[in-house]
């Protein structure tokens, strides 16, 4: 290991649950969390886009209004689902996660006021529809979008920095940490997934929305569904460039990564299948469009599941060796502490 790599002492307490259980909590709930986060952020992007488009055409404004209503629901679910994975990552990667937190602490804690503020603004935007001057109203959503686009950068910094203990002594705060390799490509990868996920949500929602609500929007159901599919499709196609880039620029890690490569390769195949299914359904006649939702969504879920699994394998490959060194150092510490304690106790006895 690099001599500049810090090897800290871990907390000298055993894990509270078997590792597989913690890993399962982490991966399963993180997957659910991230899907809702994607929809929340994607929903904000599209709301802004259609509201601007709606300046000249009422129906897009209606669509924007409809999408805006989904953000606040998705956000509540997303936040509450994030707590479990946070608990699990704190437990499984204590040394790594907390160290990354501290090194970028001012930005890490600013997630709280920024997100709370963005959520309040989303409500403001939702409930003052057509009650504010247009420019101001759009400006509120633009601010929400800006905050929503910034927050993932903070999270990505945490999970990138935590896997590279050899860099902990180099970074000076958050802005510096933004220069970590791989970070920006992953950011692009994540941001592109947001419109894709809200696209899926649109197809799901507009397949089942009551006729009168559809009429209120003023866009035929088939066109709404195809719009959703387009948002799901084109960003996903772009991912065939960004995804491999993110994969190839992953920093070298000490552990074996053949498994990671295999999972990512498989996920690319699954993504190709998902895209093909979307394309086929999108081209179906009006009466049938949307029927292919579940197969396509299933394929996409598989893709995300494989991404999550692949990331986990990479994480383990990245910290595995370091974790052993930490365990050794911790054992040394515990032994030294016991020796000092015993010596102090017998010295005290001798005095008596």
């Amino acid at each position, binding site marked *: 290991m690099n001599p500049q790599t810090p090897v800290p002492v871990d907390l000298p307490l055993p894990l509270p649950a078997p590792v597989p259980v913690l890993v399962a909590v982490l991966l399963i709930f993180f997957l659910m969390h991230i899907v809702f986060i994607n929809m929340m952020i994607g929903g904000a992007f599209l709301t802004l886009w259609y509201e601007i488009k709606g300046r000249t055409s009422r129906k897009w404004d209606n669509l924007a209004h409809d999408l805006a209503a989904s953000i606040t629901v998705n956000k*509540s679910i997303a936040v509450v689902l994030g707590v479990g994975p946070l608990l699990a990552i704190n437990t499984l990667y204590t040394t790594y996660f907390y160290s990354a937190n501290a090194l970028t602490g001012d930005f890490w804690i600013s997630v709280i006021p920024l997100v709370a503020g963005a959520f*309040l603004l989303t409500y403001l935007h939702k409930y003052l529809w057509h009650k504010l001057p247009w420019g101001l109203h759009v400006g509120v959503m633009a601010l929400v979008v800006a905050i929503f686009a910034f927050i993932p950068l903070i999270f990505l910094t945490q999970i990138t920095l935590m896997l590279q203990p050899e860099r902990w002594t180099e970074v000076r705060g958050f802005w510096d940490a933004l220069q970590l390799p791989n970070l920006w490509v992953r950011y692009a990868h994540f941001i592109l997934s947001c419109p894709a996920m809200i696209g899926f949500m649109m197809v799901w929602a507009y397949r089942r929305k009551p006729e009168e609500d559809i009429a209120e929007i003023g866009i035929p159901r088939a066109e709404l569904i195809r719009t959703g599919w387009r948002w799901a499709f084109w960003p996903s196609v772009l991912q065939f460039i960004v995804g491999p880039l993110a994969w190839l620029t992953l920093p070298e890690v000490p552990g074996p990564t053949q498994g990671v490569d295999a999972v990512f390769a498989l996920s690319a195949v699954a993504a190709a299948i998902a895209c093909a299914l979307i394309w086929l359904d999108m081209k179906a006649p009006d009466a049938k469009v949307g029927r292919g939702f579940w197969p396509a969504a299933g394929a996409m879920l598989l893709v995300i599941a494989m991404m999550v699994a692949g990331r986990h394998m990479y994480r383990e490959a990245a910290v595995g060796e370091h974790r052993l060194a930490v365990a050794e150092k911790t054992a040394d510490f515990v032994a030294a502490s016991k020796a000092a304690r015993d010596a102090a106790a017998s010295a005290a006895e001798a005095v008596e």
Partner: protein
Amino acid sequence: MDFPIFHLDALGNRGLIAVIAVLHVLINHGLAVGMMPLVAAMEWYGHKKQDPRWDRLAYRILFFAFLITTTVGALTGVGIWFSVSLVNPYSIGSLIRVFLWGWFIEWLVFITEVVLILCYFLTWKKKAWGGAGDGIGKTRHIRLGFALGFFSWVTMAIIVSILGFMMDPGNWLSNHTLWEGFTNPVYLPQLAFRTPLALAMAGIIAMTLTLFFTRRDDPFRYQALRSVSLFTLMAAPFVLLGGWWYYSVVPETMVQNLAVSMLTLEFVDWHQTLIWGMAGVTLMIALVAQLGVWKPAWVPRPVLLLTLLGIIWITGHFERVREFVRKPYVIGEYMYANGLRVEDYPLYARDGVLAWATYSTPLTEAEKGAIPAGLDLGRVQDGKDVFMITCSRCHTGTGVNAVRNHFARMFGDQPWSPDLTMGYMEFMHEAQPFMPPFPGNQRELEVLAEYLSTFQTNPAAIAGAQVAGVKLRQPDAGTQTASAEEHQ
């Protein structure tokens, strides 16, 4: 303590946690636990009287509560985690390793609560839930409201237990069942105090909101004010009763933990303030509510605000009890508030804390620039590291609870020479029982004193790892120099 050390020199690290936690408790008590039953009761009353004005007002109040709890409320809840793991990673990390399932349960309850509040709020105007005046749907919706109120209360009841258990000295490593939390002698009194307090708080907030949501010339305003006042008035005596129960139980639980006379003095002080504060606030609640019942048109907004502030103050004062229980610990008898474990103290006394520290928090240029000539930079750097490890969780250099201010008060203008300050620091845990004993060796006490002596002239804020980054301490450097000096 072996993480890079985050440090806020203005607000202070404990200040960060306190701001977030107090905000969270206020929103949780005032807008969730107390407010949900009140809103459901208003909805029920309106339905019974077939008076849609009640329904409208209840919906508006719920709207406000919903907006705040699902944004600032939810985020400050997560924020407590974030801030504690930044400030005290070793303590929260250790607690998680023992109480993971307690937190897991808390999380599940939290999910249920969020789902319920989403349902309650979003179905209010839906036809199937009586939004169009359908009786059966409305009854169901009202039941949902009371279920939500009950669940918010259950969340609080569980969290109070988990918190009480975790913070309670003695039983954290000896007795691992969560049940212990419920059988803790202060648990029931605490709940008996918090519950009516939450209801009274919600009543006062609802009165204030009613003034905003109804017009001055609308007779319904006064009708609503009168009813909400009645609700608040009913809660007031229970605040006093619960408070009295709590007040009488605390000392016997506390006495075993109060070994130091100094602390006993402070505690008696706190205890006195508590009883007067409680009596005063209850009186205020009762007077305002009585006025609301009697002459609703006379209730002035500033007085409502003042009562609310009173409740906020008493809640905050009340939270301080945990500090007394914990004394210098962050986890009773296991870990001191500086993050060092009690059982490792002999090791630190032998080798020093620096010998086992992986990281150094470098002095910034600004910090270095103001160091008086004649001091050795290496020793000052060591001093800063000792400060960061042993003092910075509770103290700042320039902000809240700043060591500089304490020194200025204690030593005034005379030079803060190590000779002057070291003697104090060696026995600081006896002078100030909130403080853990100084953990390091003699050399570390000296470099710390040298570092602190620069505070007299150096106005620079202390930079934590999020600004200055971290460097590796040379392994063993601390011990080697220490023993080299001892051998001279």
